[in-house]
């Protein structure tokens, strides 16, 4: 198979305009005749459902939570980037584009990223008009901050709750369409399979999570906006319900899965405190603007931090990266934290933590200033750990946060299955091997508000949609597969709980396909994951029935998919013999321990195709070409 990204030819600045002009339009009177399915109600899903509803399509939007407002986009703290250049500090669309290509370590498409940077300005306007209470200057204009090591202030924010406010904006737009009757919202419902008829995505099979009832929803196109798969690691900053099931079932129906091993580890999370730990709490990256990261020089130093003299502290980021210091990109900061902990210099009960110390900033700026900047984060830290970060340094440790990989899509956001569109974190498109801070919100909203409304019209206008009903053989086989799988999970009645399997799987993936990977380790992990998956299907226990609300059953289905995904992640990581962004193969590093890319052999998107339960996935490569930003070694020294 040859992958065609369908990026318009010609100058990159005009590509999106050209693409929009070339797209066929759907007659306004005909829009009402087209039905669309949107799976997921986060930034991408809610924005898409609302915008498509406004255009006049008949939209059904699904989410597994009790309300679309709960989607995990809500937890994003820091902000959203846009090339507005309000601060007059040198920002431009081109600079945002350049930074994003470079930040992604040259493993993403230039065309997509340029469009993202262009659209970023419209997103801010749209959100302001919706009533998102962005931070303001006294004079009433929008204010910006610098974030995630960017050299310009391009990040818009609403306190530490930017994701919440943007999601509520999209949610409100969505509810407006629900009221108008153009969108039907179907909450507490999980997509369990994709229906593909004559090679086109034509519907989904769902399970009502309250009653257990299976249902079939037929439409002219299906849009997946179901988020990332960070929960494969069990412990992550994702919501407990975040899962890969929707995209995974699409993969098994023929959509290619791109770059599954590109996962992002966020350096500033609250460390694990015990075996019962259910998730990790992120502390905003902005803390690194004023906090200094250090560990004791000596191994196993048990003294409380305040008793360790300055001369016995190792400010390792400042030492190794004198020009960027504590503000190095996420992947670099995370990897270094792991390295010092591996040396036995980690702090806290578990030895998996480093200090983030504000004492210098407090003595320089005063406690009041620090409280103004980070008050809510300090409160949250204290609430969880019972330690006062104004007095003792915070303890932080990296945690999985975002997954750059996802279903392969072209410039139109269409997967390899015609009629199946994938938006937001669920697709692979814009972040390459590493995502920059405050870019995820930008991408989700760009896909949902400003890209899919155009590209889906082109698809609908250029295809025919013969009537399909439930009795179609493909529909029936999808339903019966879902039913069989559910019944199978309920019938095993083994000895181990779903969570115990998930924890064990997560630990394997974290250890071997986490912050540092080796070919040998990945090989080992693949074997272990297969064995564990087999045990899962023999020995898992799922209490209750499939006819009512059964949270164990929901989890079991999701974990079953995580097993298969974990294997694919390891295969992809093993196959990519280079280090880039979040993918760090220990065999491929520069003499001073930095990621060593291999542009000659690996400047491509690895798109994997499903070939059957026991046969290896098939790799298709989409070569990446760089006409504007020329690949160079990232250096933060």
């Amino acid at each position, binding site marked *: 198979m040859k992958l065609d990204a369908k990026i318009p030819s010609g100058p990159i600045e005009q590509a999106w305009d050209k693409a929009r002009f070339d797209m066929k339009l759907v007659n306004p009177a005909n829009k009402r005749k087209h039905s669309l399915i949107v799976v997921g109600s986060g930034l991408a899903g809610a924005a898409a459902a609302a915008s498509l509803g406004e255009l006049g399509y008949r939209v059904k939007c699904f989410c597994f939570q009790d309300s679309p407002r709960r989607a995990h986009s809500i937890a994003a703290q820091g902000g959203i980037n846009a090339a507005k250049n309000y601060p007059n500090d040198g920002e431009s669309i081109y600079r945002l584009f350049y930074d994003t290509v470079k930040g992604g370590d040259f493993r993403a498409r230039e065309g997509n990223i340029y469009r993202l940077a262009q659209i970023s300005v419209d997103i801010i306007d749209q959100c302001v008009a919706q009533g998102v209470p962005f931070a303001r200057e006294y004079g009433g204009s929008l204010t910006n901050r610098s974030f995630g090591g960017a050299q310009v202030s391009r990040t818009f924010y609403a306190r530490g709750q930017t994701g919440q406010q943007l999601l509520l904006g999209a949610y409100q737009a969505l509810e407006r369409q629900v009221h108008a009757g153009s969108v*039907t*919202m*179907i*909450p*507490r*419902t999980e997509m369990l399979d994709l229906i593909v008829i004559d090679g086109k995505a034509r519907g989904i099979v769902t399970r*009502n999570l309250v009653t257990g009832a299976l*249902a079939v929803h037929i439409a002219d196109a299906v849009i997946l906006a179901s988020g990332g798969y960070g929960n494969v690691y069990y412990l992550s900053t994702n919501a407990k319900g975040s899962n890969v099931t929707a995209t995974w079932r699409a993969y098994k129906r023929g959509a290619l899965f791109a770059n599954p091993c590109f996962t992002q580890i966020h350096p500033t999370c609250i460390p694990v405190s015990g075996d019962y730990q259910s998730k990790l709490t992120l502390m905003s990256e902005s803390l690194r603007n004023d906090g200094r990261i250090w560990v004791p020089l000596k191994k196993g130093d048990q003294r409380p931090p305040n008793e360790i003299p300055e001369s016995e502290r190792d400010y390792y980021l400042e030492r190794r990266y004198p020009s960027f210091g504590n503000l190095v990109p996420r992947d670099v900061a995370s990897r270094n934290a792991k390295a010092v902990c591996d040396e036995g210099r980690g702090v806290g009960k578990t030895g998996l933590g480093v200090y983030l110390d504000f004492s210098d900033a407090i003595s320089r700026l005063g406690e009041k200033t620090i409280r103004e900047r980070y008050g809510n984060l300090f409160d949250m830290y204290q609430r969880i750990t019972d330690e006062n970060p104004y007095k003792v340094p915070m303890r932080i440790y990296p945690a999985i946060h975002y997954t750059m990989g996802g279903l392969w899509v072209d410039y139109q956001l269409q997967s390899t299955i015609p009629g199946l569109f994938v938006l937001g974190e669920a697709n692979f498109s814009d972040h390459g091997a590493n995502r920059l801070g405050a870019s995820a919100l930008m991408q989700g909203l760009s896909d949902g508000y400003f890209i899919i409304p155009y590209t889906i019209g082109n698809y609908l206008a250029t295809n025919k949609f013969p009537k399909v009903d439930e009795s179609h053989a493909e529909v029936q086989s999808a339903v019966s597969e879902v039913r069989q799988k559910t019944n199978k999970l309920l019938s095993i009645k083994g000895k181990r709980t779903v969570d115990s399997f998930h924890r064990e799987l997560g630990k394997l993936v974290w250890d071997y396909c986490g912050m540092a990977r080796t070919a040998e380790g990945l090989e080992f992990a693949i074997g272990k994951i297969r064995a564990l998956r087999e045990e899962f299907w023999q020995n898992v226990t799922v209490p209750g029935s499939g006819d009512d609300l059964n949270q164990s059953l929901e989890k079991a289905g999701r974990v079953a998919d995580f097993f298969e995904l974990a294997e694919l992640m390891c295969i992809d990581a093993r196959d990519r013999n280079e280090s880039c962004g979040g993918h760090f193969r220990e065999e491929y590093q520069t003499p001073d321990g930095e990621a060593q890319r291999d542009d000659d052999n690996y400047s491509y998107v690895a798109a994997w195709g499903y070939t059957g339960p026991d046969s290896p996935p098939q790799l298709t490569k989409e070569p990446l070409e760089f006409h504007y930003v020329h690949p160079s070694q990232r250096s933060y020294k």
Partner: protein
Amino acid sequence: MSTTASAAALGPHRNRVVTFWQSTNGKKVVMAITGAMMFLFVVGHLLGNLQVFEGPEKINAYAHFLHSIGELLWIVRLALILAIILHITATVQLALRNKRARPIGYSRKEAINSSYASRTMYWSGPIVLAFIIFHLLQFTAGYIHPESRFIEGDVYHNLVSGFQVWWVSAWYIFAITLLGFHLRHGLWSMFQSVGIAHTRHTPMLKSAALLIAVAIVLGYISIPISILLGIVK
């Protein structure tokens, strides 16, 4: 699937007065306004009654003056009666609605942020109402006037002889204290109901409500206490 909204309309009420009264917020506005009217009466009544400390001539003359204005007095009385009826009707309807809003109660429920006065409005209100009826029967109509004779027109005598009965005074003090509680919450809450609130002013308003409530209670109960102590005879 019917998990989605069945967007049928509950028939629109064309008359905005009806719509307003039927909404909980509208009823609360009515309660606030009628409450304010009754509060004005409570203040006026107190100022009049405090003349008892100035001797029989003064207060009897005041009573005579009130009766001499005739129609105007009845307008005030009618307005007050209407206020009371609306205030009570709204309360009863809202209370019934609130009972329905939580068909199954909690096995355990703690109050963590509300004042005692605010939580007991449903008790202080009816008890004060019962008191008012008793109070009117005693001092206005003279039907109940234990242990002495009610003399039409001699307010001073009626007051002093009435409050010399210890249980009348005790009942009076108790009810007035409850009125104080009712006002302590109602006085600031009426502003909230008509939409006047401010993070800086509302705390001041709450303190003012407490002060006014205490002043009113002290003012009223000073009369029976003085009579019982023999200061006013």
